[in-house]
């Protein structure tokens, strides 16, 4: 378990513009989210529906000193959202690759795969659409990331982004609509 104060310092440095601090933070957050996800499944919380929001808030509680400034908090959640997205994508891609052989003869694959294939494919489509959105409207892509990958509530988002709720609502609404068209069901 990484040192909380240390992480809080890194977070402050990063939101102050220190890129290197962000690079150090990323794997920490990534690992923590993965650890929490596994733990959540393996024991204590079994039976509960696993939600991104629960993981992200737990990660915050585990990693960060609760007394941080709101800017640092905003940065932390943005980082969590990004890492959660990467975690899920990595996992989905590797499972999908495993299914397809991934360069190795299929008979050497070591386990049977659950029936989540279509979910993986859809997830990867969402990821790609989101990257396309980011290419011409980074802010909306960031907001979507916060909403879906960090699972933040509307109020939390308003709080940490500092946007007015009407602006936030408009931006999210358009972003979601665009994503859905990009996913292709509304031609």
């Amino acid at each position: 378990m990484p040192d909380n104060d240390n992480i809080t310092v890194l977070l402050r440095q990063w939101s102050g513009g220190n890129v290197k601090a962000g690079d150090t933070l990323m794997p920490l957050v990534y690992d923590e989210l993965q650890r929490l996800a596994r733990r959540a499944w393996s024991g204590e919380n079994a039976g509960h529906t696993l939600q991104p929001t629960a993981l992200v808030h737990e990660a915050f509680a585990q990693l960060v000193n609760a007394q941080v400034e709101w800017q640092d908090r905003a940065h932390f959640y943005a980082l969590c959202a990004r890492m959660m997205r990467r975690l899920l994508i990595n996992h989905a891609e590797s499972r999908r690759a495993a299914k397809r052989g991934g360069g190795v003869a299929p008979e050497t694959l070591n386990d049977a795969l659950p029936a989540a294939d279509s979910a993986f494919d859809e997830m990867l489509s969402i990821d790609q659409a989101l990257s396309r959105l980011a290419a011409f409207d980074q802010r909306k892509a960031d907001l979507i990331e916060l909403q879906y990958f960090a699972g933040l509530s509307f109020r939390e988002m308003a709080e940490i982004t500092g946007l007015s709720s009407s602006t936030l609502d408009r931006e999210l609404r358009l972003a979601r609509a665009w994503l859905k068209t990009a996913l292709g069901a509304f031609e």
Partner: protein
Amino acid sequence: MTPEFWKRVEDAFDQAVKMDARARTNWLNSLAGQDATLAAQVLRLLSADSQDDERLHRPIQASLHALASDFDDPWLGRQLGAYRIIARIATGGMGAVFRAERTDAQYEQSVAIKLMGSHLIDADARARFRAERQILARMQHPYIARMFDGGELEDGGPYLVMEYVTGMPITEHCKARTLSVEQRLRLFQKVCAAVAYAHRNLIVHRDIKPGNILVDEQGDPKLLDFGIAKLLGDSPDNATVTVQRMTPDYASPEQITGQPITTVSDVYALGVLLYEMLSGQRPFQLQGLRPAEMEQLVCDTAPTRPSEAAATHARGLPRDLDAVVLKAMHRDPEQRYTSVQALSEDIHRHLNGLPVEARGQQWRYIASKFVRRHALAAGSAVLATLLAGAAMLYHNHSITSERDQARFEAERAQAVTAFLIDIFKQSNPDETDGATVTAREILDTGVQQLKQGLRDQPRIRAELHHSVGMVYSHLGQYDQALQQFAEVSALGATLNDHLLRARGLAGQGRVQFEQGQLAEAQSSHQQALQVQRAHQPGDSPQIAYVLNDLAETMFAQGDYAHADAYNREALDILERAPASSREYLSKTQHDLGVSLQIQGRFDEAEQYLRLALNNALDSFGERNSNTLAFMHALAAMLHERGHNKDAEELYLRVLVLEKDLLGEDYIDADATMTNLGRLYSDMEQFEQAEHFLRAAVAHVHRVRGPDHAYTAYDMINLANLLHQLERPQEAYDLAAHALEIYSRTVPDDHPYIASASLTYAGTLLDLGRPSLAEQAARRALDICEQALPEGHWLAASARSVLGEALFLQNQPKSAEPLLVEAYPILAQARPGDRATTNALKRLIRYYQQRGDSERAAHYLAELESGT
């Protein structure tokens, strides 16, 4: 999406969501009047907005569940150098493959890390491994997965860091996308490009198989694991490990027997790959066999031809491709393509409708594929109709009395029946453990039994060898066919049955001819003839058959004098022979006619072509493919002689019969239409000419697609006509398009490009663009000088156009010699042709404008005397 447009979308969307439904509809309608794209985009977004967000929410939720429920893997999260392991992709006997990410980079870069068990590699090998890794890391090719890095674990087990590739194994990709044969070939060529690149860098893959070739979303292949097999298997005691670890189905005979491995071992594996891509089957199923059994199967058995093995999608796979695949995977490395490049080029030839190298110099075949397309360059479409050989019906004259004959026939029938029953028994599932047996396997089994059985009936055995030889020959398995015929002539010698021996020799000659071994074929036929002459009456039809075969061999070698002499001798016999040899009579007449036409002896040529056609009509009627071929040959001959009316009548008949006999989609129907269109053009019936030339373009476009050399070829014929009709803009568009197709479908120095460039140059002259015309004419001339014999009329035509282009650009000194040299060559080779008249007119214009009225008048007189 540009930010500017997106901003407008955003504003419009925000406005629209505030309105009620009715106001929104009106507003959108008026927006559509100003900017339809914008309105459509907003409408789509509004429609999406009204749907729920389940599809954004649910997959993320489900993926998180799947992630959480995954088992723990001790490797996950481990750091190797600058990489952290993210996920396990696969585990196998040689180690494991993981997906990993660089941890020191802000951007995401996925890599694949291959760990090799330390037990697979000793200290010596480790040093070699390091050196080899450096070489592999230098390979950079778009279709080869990069090797970035490597290192060693604490226990000494090496690992490699490679580009992470997602995609499907190539064979699955072909199936999933239901690629056409052509698409499969083009994909395969990309694989060849990658392997050829590696070979240029002296790296042999050694383990090419579908699982090592993944195809990405764009349809591009990536080759994995280049040189890895060598890294692991270089030391001598590792040889067997290598084979065992490899997918044995793709291992070459030299790999299985532990012989040296070279670049042509990869050619073999590529052959197996192409086999599987085309037929859906592997040539040999080796999984589970013991090494000795593998060796026997791969080294001693000829694989079933892909077209026979093919699943339904590839029904009717061309024989060319069989030949290409089987040449690539020939068990003898020296018989394979000498390089991957050569393999790929042969496929290129096939894709462009050119004869493949793999089928050797099979003369009839080359003629049938080539010549009807060479009408422009060769000045004759006649050879198109060179015939497929007819099956030969020998009568066994060594048996003298009719009663003997009858008894022999009865015995033979019994023996053949027994033989067939016996070998078909092999395909009874009870006797083969349920494995499917192909026709060819049945045949192979039969041959085995023939070796042992029928000892006391050598004559019948010889008959069976002969029949089996014919079957192998039809199957294109010439080596086996040759053995069978050799057996026949050997039995003939043993039995002192001379004519049997001659039959065997003649059979060998025909197979050698098919293999393109013309000298050997000639010698076999000459021996057969010698034996026949010594022991058979001089007027036996069998002698004539061999004479015609011999003539064919001489013709293919360009020795027309001997070819004609042998055919005339054959005709002497056949004209007096019984009706049963009619087929040979007409074929021999046709062959002689074609040879005479090539030599410019038109009267005689026409006479024989007519005889051939009439005999065929008498014997087989006009609804017969041989008759049709003779008809086409005669039509082309008549056209060449200027007997246009007669040619027209015949061509029209051919067109009707082709449609009737061979169907609407008959693949070469455009050749007949184009020939007819050119005939009408010469007859100055331009409306008909345009009609048929356009019909040809439409047909070829339909049956061969927009990207085929023949499509371009027919377009150029149409362009020539339109140019002649003084519609240069249309002609220009067609020629430009055709050249563009050629640039993708034939080599840069192909004669097709020369004649297309020349057409293109001509249209540019008429459009007032002499400098562009000059470029195009120079290109045409360059190709002519490289690819055609010296003094060819096409080169002369290019010189004339080039001269005109230079003259129009005020370079009279350079123009004059070109114009002057070009004309006499054209006048000699193409009297009355439009190209010739144009060259003459250019000369006249040149001298008129230079004020040289004397020379102008001289050429003017020539023009007037000609018309």
